[in-house]
């Protein structure tokens, strides 16, 4: 009875595994950890930069806005003028119906 010969592939797979050294394992796993930390830091940096950009845009908008940007409606202007006129008015001078008649 013929003995079945193992194929080169089967023989190769039965050969001993070659494990990387502990230092190499540590280097690769540390790289994975560092990459994650860097990625998180990067996310925070992007978020911070976006927030700073929004704040800067808001500040610039406020700082460059002047009163001239608001439409002048004139509301209250007449009332202000009326106040000044009233202050200048000679209140001692009798007014009204009969005042002239009394002086006579």
């Amino acid at each position, binding site marked *: 009875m013929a003995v079945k010969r193992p194929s080169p592939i089967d023989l*190769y797979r039965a*050969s*001993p595994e070659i*494990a*990387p050294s502990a230092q190499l*394992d540590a280097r690769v796993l540390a*790289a994975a950890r560092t*990459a994650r930390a860097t990625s998180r830091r990067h996310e925070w940096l992007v978020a911070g930069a976006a927030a700073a950009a929004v704040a800067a845009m808001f500040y610039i908008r406020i700082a460059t806005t002047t009163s001239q940007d608001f439409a002048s409606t004139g509301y209250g202007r007449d009332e202000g003028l009326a106040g000044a006129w009233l202050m200048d008015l000679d209140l001692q001078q009798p007014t009204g119906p009969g005042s002239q008649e009394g002086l006579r």
Partner: protein
Amino acid sequence: MEITASIYWLPALAAVTPASKAADAPHASDEALMLCFRDGDEPSFRLLYQRYRAPLMRFCQRLTGNAHEAEEVFQETWIAVIDSRARYSVRARFVTFLFAIAHRRAADGWRKRARQPVTAMPALDHDELPASDDCDPHGAALANAQMRALQAAIATLPAEQREVFLLRAETGLGVREIAAITRARPEATKSRLRYALRHLRKALCAWQ
């Protein structure tokens, strides 16, 4: 219950759906683990690394024939996997992705050194040989001799044939996938594998 049942109806989708936690999915597919790692789950990477560290190291060692160079290719391959995680999507099996990177790194190394991979294999220590389970010293000696002969024969293969054989033996990938990794035509890949196997069988004849 309903959600679990619905997942059973979609096995293909469930296979590549990222698990929420690697610790909960030790049997998750490689692709699902890689997606988890892409999404920030570092323990998933540990599981992947655990699965492929030894096969990849043996592949690098047999491909380069040099322990130092193999370590370099091995480390660069994993660093490339880590660096490219953000762009990772399931277009092929993870093993194809991993060994394609290893192939490119090894090729880069050869180009850098402006030479072909060395053909001399490092001597195999007696400690490296597997301990035989049976109590037959003659059988154990024969098995060791066969493995030595195989490794010596692999070392004498032309670089392209050696790479195709190693990819086939180490990963179980098909000819088309190996062709995609080595960027060769499937017909050429098939021929290389056939020649490599013929050469190795011939070399092992004396031990059988």
